[in-house]
């Protein structure tokens, strides 16, 4: 490995500011894997430059935020995290409801939320051969609700997360990010602008925190079918 601390500091700085080139990003990830793990000084620099970069935002004049945005964000907050606090007996009840929900999705007209727009069955790539999932898109006014249920995904490492994309050719729009624990399962509601409702493909990538580029590590993908 490079072992040139000044060069590595250069990479750390550019990465903190979001200015790394693709090639340098690969170099940085290699160094991170092989050098930073054992170098407290470089890890300290990474933290400190990240802190400096984050604080640069505060040099800007703050802008008024509409109450409407706050309410939209709160309305979009998935409530599924609350299930972690359920007592053990509730898990069985929840499982029963899950089965009923799946049956309902198949046999009963959908009566919840906005109009169902499209759905996709996700198939795995070589990076997550045991993974699978379902995505459904639903009309939600100016936004579109994107509901994901997935399983068999590798648990997220530190500083990493998954991101769900709606894709059309070279264009892709993020519907949001999520993390996965040791169970490999996730059930989450996200949002995307309604114009992405016509995009034909959905994909899930594994991303690095603070990496400004979309990741190449595609884990799941599927074709969206209009309903």
């Amino acid at each position: 490995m490079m072992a040139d601390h000044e060069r590595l500091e250069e990479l750390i700085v550019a990465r903190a500011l979001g200015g790394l080139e693709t090639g340098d990003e690969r170099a940085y990830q290699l160094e991170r894997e092989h050098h930073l793990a054992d170098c407290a000084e470089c890890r300290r620099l990474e933290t400190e430059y990240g802190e400096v970069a984050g604080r640069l935002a505060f040099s800007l004049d703050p802008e008024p935020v509409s109450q409407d945005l706050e309410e939209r964000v709160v309305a979009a907050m998935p409530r599924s995290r609350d299930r972690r606090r359920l007592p053990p007996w509730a898990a069985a009840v929840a499982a029963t409801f899950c089965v009923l929900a799946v049956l309902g999705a198949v046999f009963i007209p959908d009566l919840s939320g906005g109009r169902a727009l499209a759905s996709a069955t996700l198939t795995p790539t070589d990076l997550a051969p045991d993974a699978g999932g379902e995505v459904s898109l639903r009309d939600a006014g100016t936004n579109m609700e994107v509901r994901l249920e997935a399983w068999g995904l590798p648990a997220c490492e530190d500083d990493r997360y998954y991101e769900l994309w709606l894709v059309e050719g070279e264009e892709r729009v993020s519907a949001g990010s999520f993390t996965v624990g040791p169970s490999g399962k996730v059930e989450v509601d996200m949002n995307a602008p309604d114009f992405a409702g016509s995009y034909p493909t959905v994909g899930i990538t594994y991303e690095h925190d603070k990496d400004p580029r979309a990741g190449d590590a595609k884990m799941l993908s599927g074709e969206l079918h209009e309903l």
Partner: protein
Amino acid sequence: MSHTVLLERPREAAVVVDLTDSRDRELVARIADGDEEAFRGLFRRYAPTAIALAKRIVRQPFLAEEIVQEAFLAVWRDPAGYDEGRGTVKSWLMGMVHHRAVDLVRREESQRRRAEDPRLIEPVATTDDVAETVVEEIGMPEERRAVRAALGTLPAEQQQVIELMYFGGRSQSQIAESLGLPLGTVKSRTLLGMRRLRVALGGMER
């Protein structure tokens, strides 16, 4: 508003301790317990800066709101993503906003196609109704003064490359090309500038 206090340390200069971050960490801990009011508190404190940052980078109010919404939802989904050992809550939050905004502008083709959509050209965030505007914690004037002062200590050429990279969402080679400079010069100016900023801002510890 940011609250700071001076503490004395043996054999060291006085260190400014930012009490805002301890309040922020408490909010993040409550968010981990599913506390919606804590989430609203964090949103009201930082959304004004987050919107300003996203708008500065993507230049479209509609997209800026999308980015901020997504970043805050990520906080709600995974508050454990915040690691106290790796900086303040506010920097973590702005890092998420910045990451998403830069990601968006880097997809230039995508941006061009979006720009053709008339819905996205119209400004969306209207603030005509003052009563509907969130004003809590909008200032953070002490932090703003500190960061601006730190930026002001930089030679103009260092400040320029840092601002183009951070606020313009541009890569080092794009900056080199636009300024007609060798890539190595851009890299060294960035490094020197950030070293100065690290020293200048280093006095405000958590």
